[in-house]
């Protein structure tokens, strides 16, 4: 599925590498990345392609989200469609 990974947290070196490495290990293809640093707050949005398999997709999404724990990062993995639905009439 095409998903959006969003990462928010205090800026420091290596956040992009940390998330991207973990994606690569799980065979997640990164399609697009955009990131901003507002004052100290790091915000990154990745559009990714997660291999199709319902059970596995959920497990991978949970794993990616839990990467933020202990790293003072908030990571969300959500289906891309939710954003299309939210912003299209």
């Amino acid at each position: 599925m095409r998903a959006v990974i969003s990462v928010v947290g205090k800026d420091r070196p290596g956040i992009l590498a940390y998330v991207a490495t973990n994606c690569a290990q799980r065979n997640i293809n990164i399609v697009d990345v955009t990131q901003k640093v507002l004052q100290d707050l790091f915000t990154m949005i990745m559009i990714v392609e997660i291999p199709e398999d319902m059970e596995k997709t959920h497990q991978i999404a949970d794993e990616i989200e839990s990467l933020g724990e202990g790293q003072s990062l908030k990571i969300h993995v959500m289906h891309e469609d939710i954003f299309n639905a939210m912003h299209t009439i």
Partner: protein
Amino acid sequence: MNKNTNSDNIIETIRMIEEENLDIRTITMGISLMDCADSDIDRSCEKIYQKITTKAKDLVKTAADISREYGIPIINQRITVTPISLLVSASGGDPVKYAKILDKAAKAVNASFIGGFFAVVPEGMTAGGKTLI
């Protein structure tokens, strides 16, 4: 990235979910009980229980899967059924039996609500509707 998935929209959506508790309040599964009508109320109840617990057995799991996939919470899983007054019309007997079996079936599949214990009367009350009310 298409126009809908620009970063501002994404952040706005996440903020709505995180801070303003945006959620999907309820998903509802409609189940017709017309084929459970029987002249014997106990048999009718048995058929209802079987049908609901079969049809809705994956309701809660499916809701959880959708919730996980889209990253948006789904709070309630609801079942709605055919107005019970129609079944009372066929079976007679004490409608409370239907209420109890609906409750039991909903509990068995972990649904948050079950609706349908009502009578449709705008076109006039049937005997079944009257008994139920």
